[in-house]
């Protein structure tokens, strides 16, 4: 063919639709960097960057919907030599990530303006991170998971430290970076060991190898499994790998915290579930006890740790650890029901977290100065609507029925009940920690409804702008709608799990 007669190498075929959601977000990020290089005036730069970001998110969502329809008719498929899986699961998680990203972008505008930070860079980093999350949801190869994980994490390190004038933000960024890099290295070592044990980094390849060959010596594989769990445990903020969570959630700019709690958690859980179910589905008896322990620790640490906090952001950080425990209850069930319940939980928790942190961001005021519980005293008289919205979201996080939080918990508990055995114990522990966590939520709610005393300094909270308002309304509305009529979401999660490529 070619003049020198060299044998041509077959490059992997690319299904453009399969990579479109990831690529479009990344393109939008690059586009923002490009136009920032051209446009120098801040007054023009931010609005135009916002438009590019919006277009990127919308196009990515359109691509996801197109994928969904294609998967519905033709079934799941892989592309890029099995590196990328396109199935209901990846699309569902992708949807959650996109919604969370859109919300975080909406929250960001006001925040950036308030703190006088550079906007376009922020948006570019967030979109880049989100594209990594989408890649993570469909990564079907351990190397792809690792690369996606890093695409998620590296922009996040910067985002956490984005407010460079505030030393707490820098400190949070530093902590997140050091522990995140450490976790990545641990995860990667797990990947290397798994590769050594099975001779493949592809999830399907590993599964095939394990189903054909009975390993005489399972040590390497188990070590690999444990190390991968540790690495991903860091990312999902599961105890005992949660140490960074309170500090980072507190120090990071609030919109970034919202983004991390909702989208990052969803993406990291997606990777965890796919690795466990696709690659190691056959040896679930190996990882179920490990997840059981992780779940118990997360539930306990998350709920009890929250009780002794005095800062609302830290409380919510611990509650996020607690929620990771609940999701793990679903994951450890090892069943299809477990996956769909974890998906439902992730979707519901995503908007609960975004809404809660949005409100905290408003109350904390300029400089994210103070999210201390004292600051919330008497909020109901100053901001009646805001305090009711926060109360609703907190009750939902506590799992009160007729809110979305109950549906989420009900799902994971029925998955546990369906799995039977020790899962019942786990479910009981889960419910009891929910009661402990409820104490924390009620404490916040009660503080809001306690009138501020004479001596309390009442700092003016910033105004609720359009973007923040939309996010709060959106999450509150979903909380009630899904709480009363969960059929649509449950059906979607069910459908997504049926199309889970294994």
């Amino acid at each position: 063919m070619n003049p020198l007669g060299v044998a041509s190498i077959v490059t992997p075929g690319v299904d453009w639709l399969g990579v479109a959601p990831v690529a479009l977000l990344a393109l939008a990020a690059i586009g923002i960097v490009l136009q920032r290089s051209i446009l120098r005036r801040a007054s023009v730069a931010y609005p135009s960057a916002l438009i590019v970001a919006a277009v990127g998110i919308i196009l990515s969502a359109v691509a996801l919907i197109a994928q969904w329809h294609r998967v519905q008719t033709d079934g799941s498929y892989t592309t890029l030599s099995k590196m990328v899986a396109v199935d209901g699961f990846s699309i569902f998680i992708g949807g959650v990530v996109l919604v969370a990203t859109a919300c975080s972008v909406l929250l960001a505008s006001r925040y950036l303006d308030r703190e006088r930070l550079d906007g376009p860079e922020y948006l570019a980093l967030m979109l880049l991170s989100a594209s990594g999350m989408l890649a993570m949801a469909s990564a079907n190869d351990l190397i792809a998971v690792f690369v996606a994980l890093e695409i998620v994490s590296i922009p996040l390190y910067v985002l956490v430290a984005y407010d460079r004038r505030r030393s707490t933000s820098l400190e949070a960024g530093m902590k997140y970076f050091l522990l995140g890099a450490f976790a990545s290295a641990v995860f990667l070592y797990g990947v290397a060991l798994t590769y050594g044990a099975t001779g493949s980094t592809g999830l399907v390849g590993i599964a095939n190898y394990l189903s054909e060959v009975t390993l005489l010596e399972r040590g390497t594989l188990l070590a690999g499994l444990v190390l991968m769990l540790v690495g991903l445990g860091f990312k999902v903020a599961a105890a005992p790998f949660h140490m960074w969570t309170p500090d980072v959630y507190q120090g990071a700019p609030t919109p970034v915290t919202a983004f991390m709690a909702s989208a990052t958690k969803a993406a990291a859980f997606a990777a965890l579930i796919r690795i466990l179910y696709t690659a190691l589905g056959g040896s679930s008896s190996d990882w179920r006890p490990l997840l059981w322990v992780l779940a118990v620790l997360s539930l306990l640490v998350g709920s009890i740790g929250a009780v002794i906090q005095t800062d609302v952001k830290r409380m919510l950080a611990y509650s996020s650890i607690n929620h990771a425990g609940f999701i793990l209850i679903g994951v450890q069930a090892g069943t299809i029901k477990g996956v769909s319940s974890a998906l439902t939980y992730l979707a519901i928790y995503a908007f609960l977290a975004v809404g809660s942190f949005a409100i905290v961001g408003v109350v904390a005021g300029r400089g994210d100065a103070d999210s201390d519980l004292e600051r919330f005293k008497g909020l109901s008289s100053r901001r009646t609507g805001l305090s009711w919205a926060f109360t609703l979201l907190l009750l939902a996080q506590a799992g009160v029925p007729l809110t979305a939080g109950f549906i989420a918990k009900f799902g994971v508990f029925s998955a546990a009940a369906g799995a039977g055995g020790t899962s019942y114990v786990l479910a009981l522990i889960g419910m009891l920690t929910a009661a402990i966590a409820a104490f924390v939520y009620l404490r916040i709610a009660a503080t809001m409804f306690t009138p501020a005393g004479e001596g309390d300094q009442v700092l003016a909270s910033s105004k609720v702008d359009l973007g923040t308002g939309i996010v709060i309304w959106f999450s509150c509305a979903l909380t009630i709608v899904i709480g009363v009529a969960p059929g649509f979401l449950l059906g979607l999660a069910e459908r997504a799990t049926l199309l889970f490529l294994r």
Partner: protein
Amino acid sequence: MIVTPTWYLVLAAALFSIGAVGMLVRRNVIVMFMCVELMLNAVNLTFVTFSKTLNDLSGQVAVFFVLVVAAAEVAIGLALIVAIFRRRHTGTTADDISELRG
């Protein structure tokens, strides 16, 4: 004396452990950072060894990605450290950086 692949794996495991322990024990941010790099390179060694024993190229491909990611992490990490030093002009230990606590 024949150097078998096991030697490389053990060396890699030792390097990785040194890195991990250093990460947990040392308080100097830059040293912690170097420990992470050490861990990543131990992983690279593992990958290459397995790639050789399994006679499969994907392990070596993985190393490329790890190298690039490590570089990106270096960039971010150093930038963060620089930003912190600019902000406070204090020492470089993790204990100096601890305003956040509950």
